[in-house]
């Protein structure tokens, strides 16, 4: 499967939180096949920027367009994985995944095997470790088809092997015309990305 060409245009975006200017007059354009890493120290506004591009934060000033359309009309083309768990502790791994996608069961099983949760499909998420819970949230990247991925600190709590698997999956995604925006403090070795540095706005 290959995605139709996608383009995200962020123009003149500004954001102020608690009287602090996080970014000012920010303009970036991203096209199919590109990976953008948003970098910067803690509190620089990385999460805020990602949540704004995902449509979770209202835009204070500026414009975000996806294929020339307003962002709010294109949310179904986005997968957003934030740093909240994004899974329900009292449900099983498989049930968690089932709720957020309409992919068929075989596809979900395969996605869970891909993230190394083979044999845990029917375990409750509260019985898993933090890293395994994270894997469960990330499994959506293997079974939901959406061209735009917005991943906030996806590597947190992942072991080296899983981090590599995730890198490979991101590469696979951009190879078929997807876009990936992410933040991390541990620069991945196997990705070819552009960097957007946040911080130091006056």
């Amino acid at each position, binding site marked *: 499967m290959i995605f139709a060409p996608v383009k995200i245009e962020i123009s003149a975006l500004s954001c102020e939180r608690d009287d602090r200017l996080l970014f000012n007059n920010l303009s970036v354009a991203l096209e199919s096949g590109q990976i953008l890493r948003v970098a910067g120290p803690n509190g620089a506004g990385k999460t805020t920027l990602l949540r704004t591009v995902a449509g979770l934060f209202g835009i204070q000033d500026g414009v975000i367009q996806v294929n020339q359309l307003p962002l709010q009309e294109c949310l179904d083309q986005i997968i957003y994985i934030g740093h909240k768990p994004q899974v329900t502790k009292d449900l099983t791994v498989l049930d968690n995944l089932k709720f957020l996608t309409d992919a068929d069961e075989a596809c979900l099983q395969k996605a869970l095997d891909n993230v190394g949760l083979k044999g845990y499909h029917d375990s409750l998420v509260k019985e898993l470790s933090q890293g395994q819970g994270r894997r469960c949230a990330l499994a959506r990247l293997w079974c939901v088809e*959406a061209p735009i991925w917005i991943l906030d600190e996806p590597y947190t709590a992942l072991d080296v092997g899983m981090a590599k698997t995730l890198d490979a999956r991101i590469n696979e995604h951009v190879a078929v015309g997807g876009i990936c925006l992410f933040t991390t403090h541990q620069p991945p070795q196997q990705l070819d990305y552009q960097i957007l540095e946040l911080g130091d706005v006056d």
Partner: protein
Amino acid sequence: MSIEKRMLVRELKLIAARPGDIFKPMWFTLLVISMVPLALAPDSQLLAEIGSAMIWVATLLALLLNTEHLFQSDFSDGVLEQWLFLDRPLAWLVGVKLIAHWLFNVLPLILITPVAGLMLSVSTEVLLALFITLLVATPALTCFSGLGAALTLGSSRSGILGVLVMMPLFVPVVILAAGVLIRATDGSDTLPLLALLGAFSVIAATLVPVAVSAAIRLNIGGSN
């Protein structure tokens, strides 16, 4: 499976995982009702008169108890914000969630009212009126307390605050329901008041999901 079906299935599985969520409010109602005769003088005439109103109020309180945290855990787990990426309007999904909540959490409260009625020696006609009033009025009450829950998602003492904010909207429903019960006791026609209550529920069910979705968006926008 469509998202609506998935949401209903998820709700059932959550109840299976946390059965206390439905049983605690049911115990609460029965406990309150069983205390009433002990607190009053042992006068079965008086009990029969106030019994139906007591059951109504106890059920209302139990409903508030199990609705006040309707969206809380999904909100703090970050599952609620994922609803925005599903290919349905948020208000629609909220509507489905409210229906599921009414079916699985509120309906059981109504189903135990005959037992409570027997405990307070309420007559059969009044008990029937009570049962129907609750069926007709609880959709509105569920919607209103759901709105209270959504408005106060971001604050720490959300439960009490949500109930307080929504109190004025509960009042007309309770007054109309009391009217039905009084008429049923007299043996006069209860249909006009029931129709009004029904209208209240229909209006609430159509408008409240829109308000709830706006409140949810607001709270998601204010959090990380």
